[in-house]
Protein backbone atom coordinates (compact mmCIF):
# COMPACT_ATOMS: atom_id res chain seq x y z
CA UNK A 1 0.00 0.00 0.00
CA UNK A 2 2.94 2.34 0.63
CA UNK A 3 4.05 2.08 -3.00
CA UNK A 4 0.72 3.33 -4.29
CA UNK A 5 -0.22 6.91 -5.04
CA UNK A 6 -2.93 8.73 -3.14
CA UNK A 7 -5.20 8.44 -6.17
CA UNK A 8 -4.70 4.67 -6.28
CA UNK A 9 -5.36 4.37 -2.57
CA UNK A 10 -8.51 6.47 -2.92
CA UNK A 11 -9.76 4.11 -5.63
CA UNK A 12 -8.92 1.12 -3.44
CA UNK A 13 -10.89 2.57 -0.54
CA UNK A 14 -13.93 3.33 -2.67
CA UNK A 15 -13.83 -0.20 -4.13
CA UNK A 16 -13.59 -1.44 -0.53
CA UNK A 17 -10.44 -3.43 -1.29
CA UNK A 18 -9.26 -2.34 2.13
CA UNK A 19 -10.62 -0.13 4.86
CA UNK A 20 -9.30 3.23 5.96
CA UNK A 21 -8.46 1.66 9.30
CA UNK A 22 -6.27 -0.97 7.62
CA UNK A 23 -4.65 1.68 5.50
CA UNK A 24 -3.88 3.95 8.43
CA UNK A 25 -2.60 1.03 10.51
CA UNK A 26 -0.30 0.05 7.65
CA UNK A 27 1.33 3.49 7.65
CA UNK A 28 1.50 3.63 11.45
CA UNK A 29 3.39 0.33 11.30
CA UNK A 30 5.73 1.73 8.63
CA UNK A 31 6.39 4.76 10.82
CA UNK A 32 7.07 2.50 13.78
CA UNK A 33 9.50 0.48 11.72
CA UNK A 34 11.40 3.26 9.98
CA UNK A 35 11.03 6.58 11.76
CA UNK A 36 13.83 5.76 14.19
CA UNK A 37 16.28 5.79 11.29
CA UNK A 38 14.78 8.61 9.23
CA UNK A 39 13.63 10.94 12.02
CA UNK A 40 10.94 12.32 9.70
CA UNK A 41 8.20 12.56 12.34
CA UNK A 42 8.43 14.72 15.46
CA UNK A 43 5.03 13.84 16.93
CA UNK A 44 2.72 10.96 16.16
CA UNK A 45 -1.06 11.07 16.47
CA UNK A 46 -1.85 7.38 15.99
CA UNK A 47 -4.98 7.27 18.12
CA UNK A 48 -6.40 10.31 16.42
CA UNK A 49 -5.55 8.84 13.02
CA UNK A 50 -7.42 5.62 13.82
CA UNK A 51 -10.43 7.60 15.06
CA UNK A 52 -10.38 9.62 11.83
CA UNK A 53 -10.14 6.34 9.89
CA UNK A 54 -13.16 4.86 11.66
CA UNK A 55 -15.22 7.94 10.89
CA UNK A 56 -14.12 7.67 7.26
CA UNK A 57 -14.98 3.98 7.07
CA UNK A 58 -18.50 4.72 8.29
CA UNK A 59 -18.97 7.22 5.44
CA UNK A 60 -17.37 4.98 2.86
CA UNK A 61 -19.51 1.99 3.83
CA UNK A 62 -22.57 4.12 3.10
CA UNK A 63 -21.18 5.02 -0.31
CA UNK A 64 -20.56 8.58 0.86
CA UNK A 65 -17.47 10.70 1.30
CA UNK A 66 -15.32 12.71 -1.08
CA UNK A 67 -12.11 12.29 -3.04
CA UNK A 68 -9.87 12.28 0.05
CA UNK A 69 -12.08 10.43 2.55
CA UNK A 70 -10.13 7.87 4.54
CA UNK A 71 -6.68 8.78 3.23
CA UNK A 72 -3.79 9.22 5.66
CA UNK A 73 -1.82 12.47 5.57
CA UNK A 74 0.87 14.05 7.70
CA UNK A 75 1.33 17.74 8.48
CA UNK A 76 4.58 19.68 8.44
CA UNK A 77 5.08 20.75 12.05
CA UNK A 78 4.57 24.39 11.07
CA UNK A 79 0.79 23.99 10.91
CA UNK A 80 -1.10 24.39 14.18
CA UNK A 81 -2.94 21.20 15.05
CA UNK A 82 -5.45 21.49 17.87
CA UNK A 83 -4.37 19.72 21.06
CA UNK A 84 -1.32 18.27 19.33
CA UNK A 85 2.19 19.62 19.84
CA UNK A 86 3.22 22.07 17.14
CA UNK A 87 6.95 22.64 17.44
CA UNK A 88 7.99 24.31 14.19
CA UNK A 89 11.23 22.32 14.64
CA UNK A 90 12.24 24.58 17.52
CA UNK A 91 13.00 24.39 21.23
CA UNK A 92 11.00 27.62 21.42
CA UNK A 93 7.80 25.68 20.72
CA UNK A 94 8.79 22.25 22.02
CA UNK A 95 6.21 22.65 24.80
CA UNK A 96 3.56 24.32 22.60
CA UNK A 97 0.27 22.49 22.23
CA UNK A 98 -1.67 24.42 19.65
CA UNK A 99 -5.15 25.47 20.85
CA UNK A 100 -6.59 25.48 17.34
CA UNK A 101 -6.32 23.92 13.88
CA UNK A 102 -4.74 25.87 11.04
CA UNK A 103 -7.14 26.38 8.13
CA UNK A 104 -5.10 23.92 6.02
CA UNK A 105 -5.41 21.32 8.79
CA UNK A 106 -9.14 21.94 9.23
CA UNK A 107 -9.80 21.69 5.50
CA UNK A 108 -7.89 18.42 5.10
CA UNK A 109 -9.71 17.10 8.13
CA UNK A 110 -13.10 18.12 6.72
CA UNK A 111 -12.11 16.36 3.50
CA UNK A 112 -11.99 13.15 5.55
CA UNK A 113 -8.26 12.53 5.85
CA UNK A 114 -6.61 10.82 8.84
CA UNK A 115 -3.78 12.69 10.57
CA UNK A 116 -0.75 10.44 11.12
CA UNK A 117 1.43 13.02 12.82
CA UNK A 118 3.68 16.09 12.57
CA UNK A 119 6.71 16.20 10.37
CA UNK A 120 10.22 17.37 11.13
CA UNK A 121 11.52 20.54 9.50
CA UNK A 122 14.26 23.13 9.64
CA UNK A 123 13.70 25.38 12.64
CA UNK A 124 11.03 28.01 11.88
CA UNK A 125 11.33 26.94 8.23
CA UNK A 126 14.79 28.46 7.99
CA UNK A 127 17.06 26.08 6.20
CA UNK A 128 17.59 23.98 3.10
CA UNK A 129 18.63 20.66 4.61
CA UNK A 130 16.52 19.93 7.74
CA UNK A 131 19.76 20.20 9.74
CA UNK A 132 18.66 23.16 11.84
CA UNK A 133 15.82 21.30 13.54
CA UNK A 134 15.83 21.11 17.34
CA UNK A 135 14.83 17.48 16.88
CA UNK A 136 17.89 16.60 14.82
CA UNK A 137 18.51 15.99 11.16
CA UNK A 138 16.29 13.97 8.86
CA UNK A 139 17.95 11.37 6.63
CA UNK A 140 17.42 11.21 2.90
CA UNK A 141 15.77 7.79 2.31
CA UNK A 142 17.80 7.36 -0.90
CA UNK A 143 21.15 7.93 0.79
CA UNK A 144 21.10 8.16 4.59
CA UNK A 145 24.32 10.17 4.76
CA UNK A 146 22.67 12.84 2.63
CA UNK A 147 20.16 15.54 3.50
CA UNK A 148 16.52 15.29 2.39
CA UNK A 149 16.53 19.01 1.70
CA UNK A 150 14.63 21.63 3.64
CA UNK A 151 12.85 23.15 5.22
CA UNK A 152 10.13 20.53 4.51
CA UNK A 153 12.69 17.72 4.88
CA UNK A 154 10.54 15.53 7.12
CA UNK A 155 7.61 15.82 4.70
CA UNK A 156 9.72 14.87 1.68
CA UNK A 157 11.50 11.98 3.39
CA UNK A 158 8.26 10.58 4.84
CA UNK A 159 6.53 10.51 1.44
CA UNK A 160 9.59 9.14 -0.37
CA UNK A 161 10.05 6.32 2.15
CA UNK A 162 6.36 5.42 2.19
CA UNK A 163 5.68 6.49 5.78
CA UNK A 164 2.76 8.59 4.55
CA UNK A 165 1.22 8.80 1.07
CA UNK A 166 0.91 12.56 1.32
CA UNK A 167 2.17 15.48 3.34
CA UNK A 168 1.88 19.22 3.57
CA UNK A 169 4.89 21.46 3.24
CA UNK A 170 5.57 25.17 3.14
CA UNK A 171 7.76 27.10 0.75
CA UNK A 172 9.27 30.52 1.37
CA UNK A 173 12.42 30.24 -0.78
CA UNK A 174 12.12 26.68 -2.10
CA UNK A 175 11.22 24.64 0.95
CA UNK A 176 8.69 22.42 -0.81
CA UNK A 177 10.36 22.19 -4.20
CA UNK A 178 13.97 21.59 -3.17
CA UNK A 179 13.28 18.71 -0.73
CA UNK A 180 10.82 17.24 -3.25
CA UNK A 181 13.66 17.23 -5.80
CA UNK A 182 16.20 15.77 -3.35
CA UNK A 183 13.79 12.98 -2.32
CA UNK A 184 12.32 12.11 -5.70
CA UNK A 185 8.76 13.23 -5.04
CA UNK A 186 6.36 15.83 -6.41
CA UNK A 187 5.74 19.09 -4.60
CA UNK A 188 3.88 22.27 -5.46
CA UNK A 189 4.17 25.80 -4.10
CA UNK A 190 0.94 27.61 -4.99
CA UNK A 191 0.56 31.27 -6.01
CA UNK A 192 0.95 33.61 -3.04
CA UNK A 193 -2.49 33.94 -1.46
CA UNK A 194 -3.86 30.68 -2.92
CA UNK A 195 -3.63 28.67 0.29
CA UNK A 196 -4.54 30.16 3.65
CA UNK A 197 -1.72 31.00 6.04
CA UNK A 198 -4.01 31.15 9.09
CA UNK A 199 -2.51 28.84 11.69
CA UNK A 200 0.65 28.38 9.61
CA UNK A 201 3.48 29.66 11.77
CA UNK A 202 4.81 32.73 10.01
CA UNK A 203 8.41 33.08 8.82
CA UNK A 204 8.27 35.68 6.01
CA UNK A 205 4.75 36.95 5.50
CA UNK A 206 5.11 38.14 1.92
CA UNK A 207 6.75 34.89 0.77
CA UNK A 208 5.33 31.96 2.79
CA UNK A 209 2.94 29.57 1.08
CA UNK A 210 1.72 26.10 2.09
CA UNK A 211 1.32 23.32 -0.46
CA UNK A 212 1.04 19.58 -1.15
CA UNK A 213 3.86 17.02 -1.34
CA UNK A 214 3.10 13.55 -2.66
CA UNK A 215 4.08 10.86 -5.20
CA UNK A 216 2.52 12.46 -8.24
CA UNK A 217 1.00 15.55 -9.80
CA UNK A 218 -2.40 13.86 -9.67
CA UNK A 219 -1.98 13.41 -5.92
CA UNK A 220 -0.98 17.05 -5.53
CA UNK A 221 -4.08 18.03 -7.50
CA UNK A 222 -6.27 16.08 -5.09
CA UNK A 223 -4.65 17.70 -2.06
CA UNK A 224 -4.56 21.21 -3.47
CA UNK A 225 -8.27 21.01 -4.21
CA UNK A 226 -8.90 20.63 -0.48
CA UNK A 227 -6.23 23.07 0.70
CA UNK A 228 -6.83 26.00 -1.65
CA UNK A 229 -9.41 28.73 -1.39
CA UNK A 230 -10.23 32.07 0.13
CA UNK A 231 -10.05 32.29 3.92
CA UNK A 232 -11.46 35.31 5.70
CA UNK A 233 -9.09 34.76 8.59
CA UNK A 234 -5.98 35.27 6.44
CA UNK A 235 -5.79 38.90 5.40
CA UNK A 236 -3.49 37.97 2.50
CA UNK A 237 -5.77 35.21 1.21
CA UNK A 238 -6.93 35.94 -2.34
CA UNK A 239 -10.56 35.48 -3.32
CA UNK A 240 -9.93 33.64 -6.56
CA UNK A 241 -12.09 30.66 -7.61
CA UNK A 242 -10.62 27.19 -7.07
CA UNK A 243 -10.89 25.09 -10.23
CA UNK A 244 -11.19 21.29 -10.24
CA UNK A 245 -7.46 20.62 -10.50
CA UNK A 246 -8.10 16.98 -11.49
CA UNK A 247 -10.40 17.80 -14.39
CA UNK A 248 -7.69 19.29 -16.60
CA UNK A 249 -4.84 16.88 -15.77
CA UNK A 250 -5.14 15.01 -19.08
CA UNK A 251 -5.40 18.09 -21.31
CA UNK A 252 -3.21 17.97 -24.40
CA UNK A 253 0.07 19.87 -24.38
CA UNK A 254 0.01 20.32 -28.16
CA UNK A 255 1.25 23.80 -29.03
CA UNK A 256 2.11 24.69 -25.43
CA UNK A 257 5.00 27.16 -25.28
CA UNK A 258 7.54 26.48 -22.55
CA UNK A 259 10.26 28.99 -21.79
CA UNK A 260 13.82 28.05 -20.86
CA UNK A 261 15.54 30.88 -18.96
CA UNK A 262 19.03 31.21 -20.35
CA UNK A 263 20.30 32.27 -16.93
CA UNK A 264 19.13 28.93 -15.44
CA UNK A 265 20.90 26.85 -18.04
CA UNK A 266 24.11 28.84 -18.24
CA UNK A 267 26.22 27.20 -15.54
CA UNK A 268 24.42 23.90 -15.20
CA UNK A 269 26.59 20.84 -14.52
CA UNK A 270 26.56 18.39 -17.43
CA UNK A 271 24.71 15.62 -15.48
CA UNK A 272 21.90 17.98 -14.60
CA UNK A 273 21.81 19.40 -18.13
CA UNK A 274 21.48 15.86 -19.50
CA UNK A 275 18.53 15.09 -17.19
CA UNK A 276 16.74 18.22 -18.36
CA UNK A 277 17.56 17.51 -22.02
CA UNK A 278 15.90 14.09 -21.70
CA UNK A 279 12.87 15.67 -20.04
CA UNK A 280 12.61 18.22 -22.85
CA UNK A 281 12.71 15.42 -25.44
CA UNK A 282 9.72 13.80 -23.73
CA UNK A 283 7.91 17.11 -23.74
CA UNK A 284 8.63 17.67 -27.43
CA UNK A 285 6.98 14.31 -28.17
CA UNK A 286 3.92 15.64 -26.33
CA UNK A 287 3.76 18.59 -28.69
CA UNK A 288 5.50 21.23 -26.58
CA UNK A 289 7.41 24.06 -28.22
CA UNK A 290 10.45 25.32 -26.31
CA UNK A 291 11.72 28.89 -26.48
CA UNK A 292 14.68 30.54 -24.88
CA UNK A 293 13.73 33.41 -22.60
CA UNK A 294 15.69 35.73 -20.38
CA UNK A 295 15.17 36.74 -16.76
CA UNK A 296 17.98 39.31 -16.59
CA UNK A 297 17.68 40.22 -12.90
CA UNK A 298 17.36 36.71 -11.58
CA UNK A 299 20.97 36.62 -10.37
CA UNK A 300 19.93 39.08 -7.66
CA UNK A 301 17.17 36.90 -6.27
CA UNK A 302 19.25 35.21 -3.55
CA UNK A 303 20.75 38.50 -2.27
CA UNK A 304 17.36 40.24 -2.28
CA UNK A 305 15.76 37.28 -0.52
CA UNK A 306 18.38 37.27 2.21
CA UNK A 307 17.36 40.79 3.11
CA UNK A 308 13.59 40.47 2.73
CA UNK A 309 13.10 37.10 4.41
CA UNK A 310 15.26 37.82 7.48
CA UNK A 311 13.66 41.27 7.83
CA UNK A 312 10.18 39.81 7.81
CA UNK A 313 11.27 36.99 10.10
CA UNK A 314 12.72 39.41 12.64
CA UNK A 315 9.27 40.94 12.87
CA UNK A 316 7.35 37.66 12.91
CA UNK A 317 9.55 36.05 15.54
CA UNK A 318 9.31 39.03 17.90
CA UNK A 319 6.22 37.38 19.37
CA UNK A 320 8.32 34.63 20.96
CA UNK A 321 9.07 36.32 24.24
CA UNK A 322 8.53 33.66 26.89
CA UNK A 323 5.48 35.48 28.24
CA UNK A 324 2.33 33.86 26.87
CA UNK A 325 3.39 30.49 25.48
CA UNK A 326 6.45 28.57 24.35
CA UNK A 327 9.86 28.41 25.96
CA UNK A 328 10.63 30.48 29.02
CA UNK A 329 14.11 30.57 30.56
CA UNK A 330 14.65 29.43 34.14
CA UNK A 331 14.50 32.02 36.94
CA UNK A 332 14.51 35.23 34.93
CA UNK A 333 15.78 38.03 37.14
CA UNK A 334 13.80 40.78 35.42
CA UNK A 335 11.68 41.31 32.31
CA UNK A 336 14.63 42.10 30.09
CA UNK A 337 16.41 38.96 31.24
CA UNK A 338 13.23 37.00 30.52
CA UNK A 339 13.19 38.21 26.93
CA UNK A 340 16.94 37.97 26.31
CA UNK A 341 17.44 34.48 27.67
CA UNK A 342 14.14 32.94 26.54
CA UNK A 343 14.97 34.04 23.01
CA UNK A 344 18.70 33.37 23.28
CA UNK A 345 18.10 29.84 24.54
CA UNK A 346 14.89 29.07 22.65
CA UNK A 347 16.17 29.85 19.15
CA UNK A 348 18.90 27.97 17.29
CA UNK A 349 21.89 29.56 15.55
CA UNK A 350 20.46 29.92 12.04
CA UNK A 351 17.26 31.49 13.33
CA UNK A 352 19.29 33.92 15.42
CA UNK A 353 21.49 34.77 12.45
CA UNK A 354 18.45 35.63 10.37
CA UNK A 355 16.75 37.64 13.10
CA UNK A 356 19.95 39.65 13.56
CA UNK A 357 20.38 40.32 9.83
CA UNK A 358 16.74 41.34 9.60
CA UNK A 359 16.96 43.58 12.66
CA UNK A 360 20.01 45.28 11.17
CA UNK A 361 18.43 45.69 7.72
CA UNK A 362 15.33 47.32 9.20
CA UNK A 363 17.12 49.51 11.70
CA UNK A 364 17.34 53.29 11.46
CA UNK A 365 19.87 54.35 8.87
CA UNK A 366 19.93 51.00 7.09
CA UNK A 367 16.30 50.50 6.03
CA UNK A 368 16.70 52.28 2.67
CA UNK A 369 19.99 50.65 1.73
CA UNK A 370 18.80 47.15 2.51
CA UNK A 371 15.07 46.46 2.85
CA UNK A 372 13.81 49.15 0.50
CA UNK A 373 16.52 48.33 -2.04
CA UNK A 374 15.63 44.64 -1.85
CA UNK A 375 11.96 45.43 -2.45
CA UNK A 376 12.92 47.35 -5.58
CA UNK A 377 15.04 44.45 -6.82
CA UNK A 378 12.04 42.24 -6.08
CA UNK A 379 9.90 44.32 -8.43
CA UNK A 380 12.51 44.01 -11.19
CA UNK A 381 12.48 40.23 -10.82
CA UNK A 382 8.68 40.06 -10.82
CA UNK A 383 8.59 42.18 -13.97
CA UNK A 384 11.09 39.90 -15.72
CA UNK A 385 8.65 37.03 -15.18
CA UNK A 386 5.70 39.13 -16.31
CA UNK A 387 7.46 39.87 -19.59
CA UNK A 388 8.44 36.23 -20.02
CA UNK A 389 4.85 35.07 -19.56
CA UNK A 390 3.80 37.32 -22.44
CA UNK A 391 5.81 35.00 -24.71
CA UNK A 392 5.42 31.60 -23.07
CA UNK A 393 2.80 29.69 -21.09
CA UNK A 394 5.06 27.89 -18.61
CA UNK A 395 8.73 28.09 -17.65
CA UNK A 396 10.93 25.03 -17.15
CA UNK A 397 14.28 24.66 -15.46
CA UNK A 398 16.25 22.75 -12.83
CA UNK A 399 14.98 22.73 -9.25
CA UNK A 400 18.43 22.49 -7.69
CA UNK A 401 22.03 22.85 -8.92
CA UNK A 402 22.95 19.33 -7.72
CA UNK A 403 21.34 16.26 -6.13
CA UNK A 404 21.21 16.03 -2.33
CA UNK A 405 24.45 17.03 -0.62
CA UNK A 406 25.96 15.27 2.39
CA UNK A 407 24.84 15.84 5.97
CA UNK A 408 27.21 18.38 7.51
CA UNK A 409 28.62 19.40 4.13
CA UNK A 410 27.24 22.95 4.09
CA UNK A 411 26.54 23.66 7.75
CA UNK A 412 29.80 25.56 8.21
CA UNK A 413 29.07 28.07 5.45
CA UNK A 414 25.64 29.74 5.58
CA UNK A 415 25.98 31.28 2.12
CA UNK A 416 26.84 28.00 0.45
CA UNK A 417 23.63 26.62 2.00
CA UNK A 418 21.65 29.63 0.79
CA UNK A 419 22.83 29.08 -2.79
CA UNK A 420 21.19 25.65 -2.97
CA UNK A 421 17.94 27.61 -3.45
CA UNK A 422 19.30 29.55 -6.41
CA UNK A 423 16.62 28.29 -8.82
CA UNK A 424 13.65 28.40 -6.50
CA UNK A 425 13.89 31.69 -4.63
CA UNK A 426 12.89 34.06 -7.44
CA UNK A 427 9.54 32.31 -7.72
CA UNK A 428 8.69 33.20 -4.12
CA UNK A 429 9.76 36.81 -4.65
CA UNK A 430 7.42 37.04 -7.64
CA UNK A 431 4.64 35.14 -5.83
CA UNK A 432 4.22 32.73 -8.76
CA UNK A 433 3.27 29.05 -8.50
CA UNK A 434 6.06 26.50 -8.93
CA UNK A 435 6.39 22.72 -8.88
CA UNK A 436 9.16 20.17 -8.72
CA UNK A 437 8.74 16.68 -10.14
CA UNK A 438 11.21 13.79 -10.37
CA UNK A 439 13.14 13.78 -13.66
CA UNK A 440 16.02 11.36 -13.19
CA UNK A 441 18.95 10.31 -11.06
CA UNK A 442 22.51 11.56 -10.65
CA UNK A 443 24.98 9.35 -8.72
CA UNK A 444 22.05 7.28 -7.47
CA UNK A 445 20.20 10.27 -6.04
CA UNK A 446 16.97 11.73 -7.44
CA UNK A 447 16.83 15.13 -9.12
CA UNK A 448 13.84 17.18 -10.15
CA UNK A 449 12.75 19.52 -12.86
CA UNK A 450 10.95 22.71 -11.97
CA UNK A 451 7.87 24.14 -13.65
CA UNK A 452 6.83 27.75 -13.08
CA UNK A 453 3.47 29.17 -14.06
CA UNK A 454 1.65 32.48 -14.22
CA UNK A 455 -0.44 33.68 -11.28
CA UNK A 456 -3.13 31.15 -10.27
CA UNK A 457 -2.09 28.76 -13.05
CA UNK A 458 -1.73 25.75 -10.73
CA UNK A 459 -4.10 23.70 -12.91
CA UNK A 460 -1.85 24.24 -15.91
CA UNK A 461 1.29 23.26 -13.97
CA UNK A 462 -0.36 20.11 -12.66
CA UNK A 463 -1.47 19.23 -16.19
CA UNK A 464 2.03 19.74 -17.62
CA UNK A 465 3.52 17.65 -14.81
CA UNK A 466 0.89 14.91 -15.08
CA UNK A 467 1.34 14.43 -18.84
CA UNK A 468 5.09 13.92 -18.25
CA UNK A 469 4.35 11.43 -15.48
CA UNK A 470 2.13 9.46 -17.84
CA UNK A 471 5.08 8.78 -20.15
CA UNK A 472 7.89 8.45 -17.60
CA UNK A 473 8.20 6.57 -14.32
CA UNK A 474 10.76 8.54 -12.32
CA UNK A 475 8.01 9.39 -9.85
CA UNK A 476 7.22 5.71 -9.27
CA UNK A 477 10.71 4.83 -8.09
CA UNK A 478 11.18 3.98 -4.42
CA UNK A 479 14.43 3.89 -2.49
CA UNK A 480 15.47 0.22 -2.18
CA UNK A 481 15.67 0.25 1.60
CA UNK A 482 12.00 1.24 1.85
CA UNK A 483 10.27 -0.82 -0.83
Amino acid at each position, binding site marked *: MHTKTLAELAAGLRAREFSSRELVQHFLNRIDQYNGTLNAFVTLSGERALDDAEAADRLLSQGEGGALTGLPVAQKDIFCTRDIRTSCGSRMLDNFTAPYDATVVARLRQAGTALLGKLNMDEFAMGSSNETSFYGEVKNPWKPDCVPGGSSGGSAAAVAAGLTPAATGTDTGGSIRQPAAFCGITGLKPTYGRVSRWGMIAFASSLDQGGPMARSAEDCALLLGAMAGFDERDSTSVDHPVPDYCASLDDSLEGLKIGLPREFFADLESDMAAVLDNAMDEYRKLGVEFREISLPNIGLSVPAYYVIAPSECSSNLARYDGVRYGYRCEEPKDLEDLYMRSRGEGFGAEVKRRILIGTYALSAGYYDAYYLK*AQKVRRLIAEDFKRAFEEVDVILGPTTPTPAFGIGEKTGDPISMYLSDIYTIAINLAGLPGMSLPAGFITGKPVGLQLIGGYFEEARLLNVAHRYQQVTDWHRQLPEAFV
Partner: protein
Amino acid sequence: MSLTVDEVKKIAYLARIRIDENDATGYARDLSGILDFVAQMNTVDTNGVEPMAHPLDLPQRLRPDEVTEENQRERFQAIAPAVEAGLYLVPQVIE
Protein backbone atom coordinates in the same frame (compact mmCIF):
# COMPACT_ATOMS: atom_id res chain seq x y z
CA MET B 1 30.45 45.31 5.14
CA SER B 2 32.26 44.36 8.32
CA LEU B 3 30.35 44.32 11.58
CA THR B 4 32.22 44.65 14.86
CA VAL B 5 31.39 42.55 17.89
CA ASP B 6 30.01 45.71 19.53
CA GLU B 7 27.64 46.33 16.65
CA VAL B 8 26.47 42.72 16.83
CA LYS B 9 25.76 43.14 20.53
CA LYS B 10 23.75 46.30 19.83
CA ILE B 11 21.69 44.52 17.16
CA ALA B 12 21.19 41.55 19.47
CA TYR B 13 19.91 43.89 22.14
CA LEU B 14 17.45 45.47 19.69
CA ALA B 15 16.20 41.96 18.96
CA ARG B 16 16.20 41.11 22.68
CA ILE B 17 18.36 38.05 22.09
CA ARG B 18 21.14 37.21 24.50
CA ILE B 19 24.34 36.22 22.72
CA ASP B 20 27.08 34.38 24.56
CA GLU B 21 30.41 36.22 24.70
CA ASN B 22 32.19 33.34 22.94
CA ASP B 23 29.62 33.27 20.14
CA ALA B 24 29.70 36.99 19.41
CA THR B 25 32.77 36.86 17.13
CA GLY B 26 31.26 34.01 15.15
CA TYR B 27 28.04 35.95 14.62
CA ALA B 28 30.01 39.05 13.62
CA ARG B 29 31.84 37.02 11.01
CA ASP B 30 28.71 35.28 9.67
CA LEU B 31 26.66 38.46 9.56
CA SER B 32 29.45 40.40 7.85
CA GLY B 33 29.65 37.65 5.25
CA ILE B 34 25.92 37.81 4.62
CA LEU B 35 25.99 41.60 4.32
CA ASP B 36 28.83 41.34 1.80
CA PHE B 37 26.79 38.81 -0.12
CA VAL B 38 23.61 40.88 -0.25
CA ALA B 39 25.60 43.96 -1.32
CA GLN B 40 25.38 42.46 -4.84
CA MET B 41 22.01 44.22 -5.02
CA ASN B 42 23.95 47.44 -5.56
CA THR B 43 25.09 46.25 -8.98
CA VAL B 44 21.69 47.17 -10.37
CA ASP B 45 20.25 50.66 -10.71
CA THR B 46 16.85 50.83 -9.06
CA ASN B 47 16.24 54.54 -9.45
CA GLY B 48 12.54 55.17 -10.06
CA VAL B 49 11.59 51.54 -9.34
CA GLU B 50 8.60 51.11 -7.02
CA PRO B 51 9.38 48.88 -4.04
CA MET B 52 7.31 45.69 -4.04
CA ALA B 53 5.89 44.78 -0.63
CA HIS B 54 3.29 42.29 -1.81
CA PRO B 55 3.98 39.94 -4.74
CA LEU B 56 0.57 40.67 -6.29
CA ASP B 57 0.59 44.36 -5.26
CA LEU B 58 -2.61 43.83 -3.33
CA PRO B 59 -3.55 46.00 -0.37
CA GLN B 60 -4.39 44.53 3.01
CA ARG B 61 -8.03 43.64 3.31
CA LEU B 62 -9.93 45.42 6.07
CA ARG B 63 -13.00 44.21 7.89
CA PRO B 64 -15.72 45.94 9.92
CA ASP B 65 -14.78 46.68 13.51
CA GLU B 66 -17.19 44.09 14.92
CA VAL B 67 -16.61 41.34 17.45
CA THR B 68 -16.60 38.02 15.60
CA GLU B 69 -14.53 35.79 17.85
CA GLU B 70 -15.49 33.98 21.06
CA ASN B 71 -13.53 34.75 24.19
CA GLN B 72 -11.39 31.67 24.73
CA ARG B 73 -9.03 33.11 27.31
CA GLU B 74 -8.92 30.03 29.48
CA ARG B 75 -8.09 27.78 26.59
CA PHE B 76 -5.33 30.08 25.38
CA GLN B 77 -3.92 30.66 28.85
CA ALA B 78 -3.83 26.94 29.63
CA ILE B 79 -0.53 26.79 27.75
CA ALA B 80 1.05 29.83 29.41
CA PRO B 81 4.18 29.54 31.58
CA ALA B 82 2.57 31.47 34.46
CA VAL B 83 -0.86 33.04 34.83
CA GLU B 84 -2.93 34.42 37.67
CA ALA B 85 -6.42 35.91 37.60
CA GLY B 86 -6.34 36.02 33.81
CA LEU B 87 -3.03 37.89 33.75
CA TYR B 88 0.32 36.66 32.47
CA LEU B 89 2.97 36.69 35.18
CA VAL B 90 6.43 38.09 34.52
CA PRO B 91 9.25 39.28 36.82
CA GLN B 92 8.61 42.65 38.44
CA VAL B 93 8.87 45.51 35.98
CA ILE B 94 8.43 48.58 38.14
CA GLU B 95 10.52 49.00 41.27
